[in-house]
């Protein structure tokens, strides 16, 4: 599974992307955020307010309740500020 990070999520985690093998119990976006948060201080720092993190699966916005089945690219980023 490919994870990609943008803006301050990317800066706090300290990498732009990574490949991860998710344990079977990580089934939803919300599970993923919880699981990532325990991977180290930098993840804890980036994801301390998981409700603030926006997520896209295969380049489409999803809610935190969305299931990860079928995902090949999951992006985590702060609320968007374009325009």
């Amino acid at each position, binding site marked *: 599974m490919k994870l990609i990070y*943008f803006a301050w999520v990317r800066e706090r985690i300290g990498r732009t992307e990574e490949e991860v093998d998710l344990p079977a119990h990580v089934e939803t976006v919300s599970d993923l955020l919880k699981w990532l948060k325990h991977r180290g201080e930098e993840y804890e720092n980036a994801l301390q307010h998981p409700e603030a993190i926006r997520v896209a699966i295969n*380049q489409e916005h999803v809610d935190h309740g969305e299931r990860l089945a079928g995902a090949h690219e999951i992006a985590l*980023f*702060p609320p*968007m*500020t*374009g*325009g």
Partner: protein
Amino acid sequence: MGAVQPHIRIQTADFDVAAEIARLTGGRRDIGAVVTFTGLCRDEAGRLSALELEHYPGMAEAEVLRIAGDACIRWPLQGITVIHRYGKLEPGDNIVLVVTASTHRQAAFDAACFVMDFLKSRAPFWKREHAAGGAAGEWVAAREADEAAIANWRK
């Protein structure tokens, strides 16, 4: 109206508003209204020297196309163009352009407004401020008003 193909560009280069209007209206006799919105980089009363725009390549194009496509479903548009720049931009530089063309003005106005509202909080772009001293500063925080603007279109 299903035949309208939105013209979407995500680029570092500047754009020419007149040329983009001509792209939609050239050779046509049925368009009665063209609305353009241009978003510019501002210096916040001298506080900023630049804005740096990060984007999610691939998804930025896809999401802007989804938004423009939704506008084509809601209003009888004859053409729609959205250009969004990324990279480092200075005060006075163009950031974003929306051009909508329709038979009558209301559809063109409303569609342009709709596209901008959704671009603000759904298109994967993030702005970071560069202070007048030159140092890279804070990421711009999302405004609650932007989220509220989207909710209004769902009513």
